């Protein structure tokens, strides 16, 4: 009797452990997916930039809603703001804070825009010069209307510099406030800012 009871208990224990493992795999895979993908289910990709047109919207699918909650809580719908996120440079390499990048583009079709550098925890870098972003009000334009700036651990002469101290992953976020209806309808028509790595990473 005692041996039989012991065998039954062992089976229950193994069963409980297996189910707990299954729950852990389910929860862990969900959290991993959300953390690894700044925007899930992108609606469009332009150059290195991805946009999800349902971010912040009541029409968002559950993966988009959860991904936005983890990586960009309290987003606005696309009529108010479009968020393009780049986690890679134009060569397809993941952005790293210990690498220097030059970002070059032209003013997007929106009322107002900004590009901000975030660490991989989606918070701002501790920039000693207080430069966290470049926006349409302060960007200097060339004769052709283009702007450029640099990000990275070292200041590049003559450029507007967003410092990214440390050695970690990072993303760039392009916010477009009140984007033109044509851009909302066709986000792939964005003239995406180019992201080029400068030299070797530190």
């Amino acid at each position, binding site marked *: 009797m005692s041996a039989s009871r012991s065998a039954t208990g062992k089976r229950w224990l193994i069963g409980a452990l297996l189910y707990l493992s299954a729950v852990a795999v389910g929860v862990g895979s969900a959290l991993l997916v959300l953390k690894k993908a700044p925007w899930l289910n992108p609606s469009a990709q332009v150059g290195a930039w991805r946009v999800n047109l349902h971010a912040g919207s009541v029409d*968002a699918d559950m993966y988009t*809603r*959860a991904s936005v909650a983890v990586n960009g809580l*309290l987003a606005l719908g696309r009529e108010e703001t479009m968020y393009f996120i780049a986690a890679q440079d134009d060569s397809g390499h993941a952005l790293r804070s210990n690498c220097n990048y030059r970002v070059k583009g032209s003013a997007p079709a929106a*009322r107002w825009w900004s590009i901000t550098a975030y660490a991989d925890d989606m918070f701002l870098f501790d920039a000693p010069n207080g430069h966290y*972003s470049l926006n349409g009000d302060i960007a200097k334009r060339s004769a052709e209307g283009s702007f450029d700036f640099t990000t990275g651990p070292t200041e590049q002469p003559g450029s507007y510099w967003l410092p990214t101290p440390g050695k970690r992953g990072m993303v760039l976020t392009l916010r477009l406030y*009140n984007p033109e209806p044509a851009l909302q309808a066709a986000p792939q028509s964005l003239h995406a800012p180019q992201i080029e790595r400068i030299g070797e990473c530190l």
Partner: protein
Amino acid sequence: MKHLSAAQRLWFYRGLTLLVTAILAHLLTIWAVPRLIMQVVLQGPMAQTLNMHNRAAFPPPVTAQSRAIVMPSPDLLYSVCVFDLSEGAVRVRAAPQLPNYWSIALYSANSDNFFVRNDRQAAGKPVDLWLVPSSGAPAQDRVPAGAEVVVSPSKTGFLLMRVLASDYQADQMMLEAARRTLRCEAARGP
């Protein structure tokens, strides 16, 4: 299945049950994450510190030390309020007179942005909204006739006012005065 022994069939069903359990746990987590994060926003340390339950609060400009909510914009000045409609309507008012972008956005308890009003839509007029729950008739919430009613999908939620602040230091007085016109309070009736 016909060729499987009883023990093999048992393990097959056990494996299937484990797989279904893992999938359900995955989906439940994806569903729950935005709701749990919003609960932290609505009731967590930031809400307690800023004392913003049916009350507008005005956090300082965003810096690298701002770590309450992910992906803060350093170009915007934020004002906030946790609205709670369990006792009736909440009235939201603001009259920011600014030349640049501002908006008032409302978020439900699952993080969806269900309403936004920006400066262009306001066209220079003050914002005056009566926020009511979807389950309550406006009359029960003492909303005056002709008032602009916004129905919230959830009884609690978050208000986020954004004011463009490209150069906060230079425009501090104007920006602070404008955003402090925000009121967010339980309605006392007409």
